[in-house]
């Protein structure tokens, strides 16, 4: 921890805080991420999104993950990390494509080097190692930051990815957002280790845990991990300890498995309030700037709302267009069948 929950620098924090510019960028990012989470929640209630796994309360992790990367680097988000993808510059409407139901991945992964958001947990981690190893073979100095949740650390793919990364010294930073739950399952049912950061030991990978609601600390730890990976020193594991303030998704009922008190306690450690207090206390943030951040966040929310509310007629041809580079004869037939069916329906009207 560099800043305590009340926004005061800790002993460790004094002297090693990221510079003011970085903290301001981070704060702006978090404010936008929070607003994005809220907006997406509204869109779900309005029936415009099928489902939304919110990162409300985890905005420091979301923003830090994006902020520590250079342009050519890669981000591998997990399904909850929509706000991180947005922070990295992916169009917020495209990011929500999956959850709106338009298409599986709404954005071009190569545009900002953000891998597609997908739901099978931990399965993206070996991909991240492959991308990193390819970067090394190609002689680029790309770093890959791969995110997953506390629950996902139990999957075999987590293990295999960390081990491959270690053996090949691939430039990957594994960033576990420990938000204390996997849907309803608490951390204690997920792992008996002293910390998730300890999981690095079995691979010969340095592991570090950090207060995941302390943006300053996250930027510090993740940047060092990214720098280290970039110099060829190999992968690293970072556990950010945070909390999923909202239910798993809108479909979830969190009261079935956790107490209001617990939520309240964590809400008091809010990552945004903490940093804002500090920056105001230091005179780095004033009302004008704060208003500008809120305005920018509103702008993102507005664009999101607008884009999601604009319906694009889905194109049935798309079902068959992207399965292979060239459709198989079988798909050509099947597409003709669908077109025929639709044209007859059309005729009926």
């Amino acid at each position, binding site marked *: 921890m560099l800043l305590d929950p009340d926004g005061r620098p800790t002993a460790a924090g004094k002297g090693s805080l990221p510079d003011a510019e970085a903290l301001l960028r981070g704060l702006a990012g978090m404010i936008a991420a929070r607003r994005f989470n809220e907006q997406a929640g509204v869109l779900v209630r309005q029936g415009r999104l099928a489902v939304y796994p919110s990162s409300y309360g985890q905005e420091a992790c979301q923003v830090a993950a994006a902020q520590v990367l250079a342009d050519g680097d890669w981000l591998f988000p997990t399904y909850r990390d929509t706000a991180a993808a947005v922070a990295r510059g992916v169009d917020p409407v495209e990011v929500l494509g999956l959850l709106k139901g338009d298409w599986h991945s709404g954005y071009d992964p190569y545009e900002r080097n953000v891998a597609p958001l997908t739901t099978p947990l931990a399965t993206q981690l070996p991909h991240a190692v492959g991308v990193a190893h390819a970067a090394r073979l190609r002689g680029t100095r790309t770093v890959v930051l791969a995110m997953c949740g506390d629950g996902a650390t139990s999957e075999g793919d987590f293990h295999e990815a960390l081990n491959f990364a270690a053996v090949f010294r691939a430039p990957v930073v594994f960033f576990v957002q420990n938000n204390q739950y996997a849907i309803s399952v608490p951390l204690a049912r997920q792992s008996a280790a002293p910390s998730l950061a300890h999981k690095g030991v079995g691979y010969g990978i340095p592991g570090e845990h950090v207060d995941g609601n302390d943006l300053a600390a996250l930027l510090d730890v993740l940047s060092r991990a990214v720098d280290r990976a970039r110099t060829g020193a190999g992968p690293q594991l970072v556990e950010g300890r945070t909390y999923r303030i909202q239910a798993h998704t809108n479909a979830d009922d969190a009261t079935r498995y956790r107490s209001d008190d617990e939520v309240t306690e964590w809400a008091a450690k809010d990552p945004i309030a903490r940093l804002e207090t500090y920056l105001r206390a230091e005179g780095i943030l004033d009302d004008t700037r704060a208003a500008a951040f809120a305005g920018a966040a509103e702008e993102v929310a507005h664009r999101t709302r607008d884009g999601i509310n604009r319906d694009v007629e889905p194109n049935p041809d798309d079902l068959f267009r992207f399965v292979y580079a060239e459709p198989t004869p079988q*798909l050509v037939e099947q597409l003709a069948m669908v077109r025929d069916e639709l044209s007859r329906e059309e005729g009926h009207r």
Partner: protein
Amino acid sequence: MTTIAVEHETLSTAQALNRALRDALAEDPTVLVFGEDVGPLGGVFRVTDGLTAEFGEDRCFDTPLAEAGIAGFAVGLAMNGMRPVMEMQFDAFAYPAFEQVVSHIAKMRNRTRGRVELPLVMRVPYAGGIGGVEHHCDSSEAYFAHTPGLHVVAPSNPADAYSLLRDAIASPDPVVFLEPKKLYWAKGDVALRSGREPGIGTAVVRRQGTDATLIAYGSSVPVAIEAAEVAARDGRSLQVVDLRSLVPFDDATVCGAVESTGRAVVVAEAAGFASVASEIAARVGERCFHSLSAPVRRVTGFDIPYPPPKLEHLQLPSVDRILDAVDDLQWEDA
């Protein structure tokens, strides 16, 4: 063994499954229910609702998030006297357990010449039609049905959901139990019971008909029945067979039905290529060849990854597609 139907209740499929688990847990102390979020939460579809509260943490519990681990753990529990009922949270999330299913669950009895039996059940919410995002709507039955050593069943209504799950838990063999997600909320009359009847392996004719036979299972049965109702209004009499069990396969009922009509359409949601629908079409073609007045037609999902919600209606066998296939059955020859 005899079945004593004790009472009837109107239940949704999810409730019927919940009731089957409850009755099994109550009757047999070796039954264990576990998986991801099946404990206090009661499962994402509430199929295990209330079981931890009623039977305690030892009988219904959450595991770490690892499907191969869950399946392998179930193998060990079954080796040591338990009857594990594990839940895979969604169809596509059973794939990490595939190795355990194919290389151990399906093979253990045979490997050990019957000495080690694995009376376990793998519950898999399967298929689409619920507007689910990628990986939440797969129809994975072909992978299991192709694997010798597994029983594979799929109920199409609450009554079968209850009785097939009771049968599956009572079975000495591993059963992959496919729960059609879109039918979770459909209600129906359920005959509760104690004891068991030999239910796995029998298909049933859901609707009598004389012109053609629709062969379906799981989530496709209600669509087939609806198609038959629509066809009836147009003067065409369609018979509907509900397989219930994919493995074992009830050749007698299926062939009897097809022979009585001379025409057949197979309906299934999964991608058609090398699927259970292929098997049905091939079997019917082999066994009822001389009774057939037309080729066996298949109405299945296309050979594409399951589409996003906005397009899934095109992938699912619809009443229209079924009736188109029926229209194709060369009636001019009839």
